[in-house]
């Protein structure tokens, strides 16, 4: 009944916890508060680790009698607890610092679960870490472990769907809690509620109308009804959403501050206020008829709005009750929205083809709206993080062409990024080329002097295409000598290329052109001049994180579009055929040289595009930024996300570039987490988080062959 593996897993888990403790990582996590004064990230991680151990022991036994998984889980977690206590005792008795040098600076409280004990029962008076080693705390530690075992043992008995919903909601809540300090919003809870009400009223009305009728109402009528409902909500908001209502004795007290959207009305944009709500109502009215994807997306959008409102009302610190409300909302949302979508599918889709196109339109409309508005919600630091994620995602999509499609392991991807960045740097920054032959020392020259002297500079928009082209051509040229190489050999050679490019941009020989170790700066900020709105026109300046965001979005859309279209075409098939079996691909008549060079070219072009925008964002280029580690980071996210899958690569970027940014405190342990995650993903899911889905062409092919009277049978 009790498996040997149960003990093994318990010991393994303790080993990992101990190892992490020795690195001091828990000390930094302790400072990262999920819920202020109640729950630190440290605690969350320990709860998760103990819980997961119990789960891992219980899961394989889930088909046996209910008691068996439970007992095994409890025994595993108890083993952790007991051994942990033993270790704490050992630590207190024998000074182990002479063995573990790193323990010197380590605060023992994480090892003794100081934080955890406080969380479980005892009032927060135990601020002295020394007290945490008291007997009571240790007993509680053991009890806690046993409880986690019982919970995880019970969890495996629940339906898989339920487990998933709860787990995803919990993770999302923690993530939202962590970013809540970063949200610098323009939306309050009443705003969000007003939108949600407008949307749901229109949704319910449209749903009711549709179910009562056999022949569907005309689209325009439905849309008008929705818009009307939205307008009514706006009107209501104008009347009751005043400052007074939110005061201590107002009817809406407790909901936080007055809705910000009212300001729109106050500023004379009454039409805008009504318009926004009418659009929301319109979307709500169309949603029940939309295909599943659009339908669910719109519902998730409303959910996200409410959560944003909640977070903003909670202010910079997320209180426990708000966290619980968010958790609940997420559970409900994740559990029920897909079901609603199924209903929508079954009941309302009459005009399948037209309806689908229409709802895809709505979907893209909503998505575009979110993307356009998103930066307004972000603070600079969040925008910076998101920009980094998009940059990495985009570079990953580029590298994915090489690794995921063509199967060419490229460790020198940083070369194309650097070439893109330096092309922009050289063409738009001060150097011997642009400054009429004068060697520039950036330390001794002012901006005015640069402007006077360096007349050869072109603007960013001229340099961008050149950067992409130059990067693509160099990428192809670098590909020529290595075409005959496969696998490991190719990896080593490309590694060399990355290093060569880095050496070149570092070198003193090219210093007048590329600035040597100092690099080139300043690189002018990209601007777009729009000749609208009066005599002066509008000048769009991409000078800060929230505006560079749009550049990145633009670039990643291009990257996705190009690589996606190629991947489903003849070219993409050739790539994948070469990856699968080069000899056979050649026997099928595929020109392997040309096909591989194409991969080098496309991949480098995207790398160059990313590098060019990065240079413009940083307003400088320095060789420090373009080192091997950059290649490895991009490579890792492609592998973790799933080679050959664009959504996978994006997820990989979110996980690998986003997570460490989210846990700012983690910074110094970034590589540790990075390595750990890589190992874990490769062990558990060697094909990546979101491996590519094989294209479903059969249905289309069948439809194509059917109308033919001479079709084979």
């Amino acid at each position: 009944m009790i498996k040997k593996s149960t003990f093994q897993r318990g010991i393994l888990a303790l080993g990992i916890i101990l190892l992490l403790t020795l690195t001091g990582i828990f000390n930094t996590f302790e400072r990262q508060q999920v819920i202020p004064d109640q729950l630190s990230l440290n605690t969350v991680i320990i709860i998760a680790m103990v819980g997961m151990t119990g789960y891992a022991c219980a899961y394989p036994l889930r088909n046996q009698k209910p008691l068996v998984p439970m007992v095994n889980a409890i025994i595993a977690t108890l083993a952790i607890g007991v051994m942990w206590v033993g270790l704490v005792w050992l630590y207190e008795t024998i000074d182990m610092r002479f063995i573990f040098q790193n323990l010197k600076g380590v605060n023992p409280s994480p090892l003794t679960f100081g934080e955890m004990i406080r969380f479980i029962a005892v009032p927060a008076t135990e601020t002295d870490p020394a007290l945490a080693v008291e007997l009571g705390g240790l007993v509680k530690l053991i009890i806690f472990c046993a409880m986690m075992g019982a919970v995880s043992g019970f969890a495996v008995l629940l339906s898989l769907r339920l487990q998933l919903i709860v787990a995803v909601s919990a993770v999302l809540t923690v993530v939202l809690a962590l970013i809540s300090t970063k949200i610098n919003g323009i939306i309050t809870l009443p705003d969000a509620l007003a939108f949600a009400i407008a949307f749901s009223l229109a949704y319910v009305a449209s749903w009711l109308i549709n179910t009562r009728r056999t022949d569907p109402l005309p689209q325009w009528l439905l849309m008008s009804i929705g818009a009307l409902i939205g307008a009514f909500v706006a009107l209501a908001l104008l009347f009751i959403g005043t400052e007074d209502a939110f005061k201590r004795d107002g009817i809406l007290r407790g909901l936080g501050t007055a809705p910000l959207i009212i300001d729109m009305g106050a500023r004379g944009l009454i039409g805008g206020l009504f318009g926004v709500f009418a659009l929301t109502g319109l979307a709500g009215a169309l949603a029940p008829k939309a295909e599943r994807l659009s339908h669910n997306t719109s519902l998730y959008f409303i959910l996200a709005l409410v959560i944003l409102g909640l977070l903003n009302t909670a202010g910079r610190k997320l209180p426990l009750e708000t966290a619980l409300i968010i958790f609940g909302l997420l559970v409900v949302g994740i559990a029920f929205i897909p079901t609603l979508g199924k209903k929508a599918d079954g009941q309302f889709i009459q005009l399948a083809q037209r309806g689908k196109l229409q709802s895809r339109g709505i979907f893209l409309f909503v998505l575009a709206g979110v993307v356009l508005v998103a930066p307004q919600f972000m603070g600079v630091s969040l925008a910076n993080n998101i920009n980094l994620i998009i940059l990495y995602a985009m570079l990953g999509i580029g590298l994915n062409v090489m690794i995921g499609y063509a199967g060419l392991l490229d460790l020198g991807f940083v070369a194309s990024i650097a070439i893109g960045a330096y092309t922009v740097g050289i063409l738009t920054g001060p150097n011997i080329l642009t400054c009429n032959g004068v060697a520039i020392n950036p330390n001794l020259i002012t901006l005015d002097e640069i402007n006077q002297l360096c007349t050869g500079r072109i603007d960013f928009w001229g340099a961008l295409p050149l950067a992409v082209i130059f990067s693509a051509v160099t990428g192809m040229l670098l590909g020529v000598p290595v075409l005959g190489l496969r696998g490991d050999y190719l990896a080593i050679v490309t590694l060399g290329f990355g290093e060569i490019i880095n050496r070149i941009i570092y070198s003193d020989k090219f210093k007048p052109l590329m600035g040597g170790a100092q690099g080139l700066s300043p690189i002018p900020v990209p601007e777009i001049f729009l000749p609208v709105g009066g005599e002066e026109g509008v000048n769009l300046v991409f000078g800060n994180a929230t505006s560079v965001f749009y550049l990145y979005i633009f670039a990643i859309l291009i990257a996705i579009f190009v690589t996606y279209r190629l991947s489903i075409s003849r070219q993409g098939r050739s790539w994948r055929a070469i990856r699968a079996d080069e000899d056979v691909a050649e026997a099928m008549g595929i020109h392997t040289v040309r096909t591989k060079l194409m991969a080098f070219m496309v991949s480098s072009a995207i790398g160059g595009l990313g590098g060019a925008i990065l240079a413009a964002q940083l307003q400088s280029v320095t060789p420090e930024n373009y080192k091997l580690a950059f290649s490895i980071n991009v490579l890792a996210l492609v592998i973790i996300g799933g080679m050959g899958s664009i959504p996978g690569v994006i997820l990989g970027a979110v996980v690998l570039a986003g997570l460490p940014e989210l846990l700012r405190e983690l910074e110094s342990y970034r590589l540790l987490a990075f390595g750990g995650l890589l190992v874990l993903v490769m062990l558990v899911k060697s094909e990546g988080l979101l491996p590519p889905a094989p294209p479903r062409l059969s249905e289309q092919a069948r439809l194509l062959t059917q109308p033919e009277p001479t079709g084979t049978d």
Partner: protein
Amino acid sequence: MGDLLLHAMTITKRFGGLTAVNAVELKIERGMIASLIGPNGAGKTTFFNCITGFYTPEEGRIMFNNRDIRGLRTDQIAHRGIARTYQNIRLFGAMTALENILVGMHIHLKATPIGSIFGFGHTRREEREALKEAYRLLEFVGLGDKGDLLASNLAYGFQRRLEVARALALKPQLLLLDEPTAGMNPQETDEMMEFIRNLRDKLNLTIFLIEHDMKLVMSISDQVSVMDYGTKISEGTPAYVQKDPAVIKAYLGSAPEEVLSEQA
């Protein structure tokens, strides 16, 4: 008989000191089903590899449609109209059955990367036509309902058929089959035999196959060539080859009746 499609003239291929194929002379006429048999290690697959350009023979010429194809790259030879299957099935495992066939149609498609990115009208039309044809081929080999399965997930017999379909997608003049019935039971072997005969009759293909199943070889071949230790030791109609003492010696070195009864 008809005109000469393939003429291998005294082909020699050496690996270091080993002469895998030694001055082999072989003619295949259009519309024929020709077989190449011989004990393991006789150099049959090496000979195939020479024809398809995977190896370049040191000596001799390979005339295909009266043009020398020796020294051409594999993909160029595919363009000339030679397609093959492999002894140990080599499908593109991570691609679906339909995609495998679409790869096989590569040389007949004209889509350029630029055309695919921007979705030009003719590119899209071509892609639709290709998909249609690929599906027909899939139905032809009896895999119509398995188009979206990954090739690696198909059952063994289906993989064999898919490999043939992929080779057919090249619309070759000459189809090389390397042990098409390897690993099949007698019933499957019979089906495959019927299938190969169909290919010749319905698609007017010329077929050249390596095979160990003597029953199959003797019943469908127009011409049988026998190799041993890299040299061709016999050639002719099935009836002739069966009685050739050199062949019997190569296989067993004993009485002909025993050999034949055992192989059947």
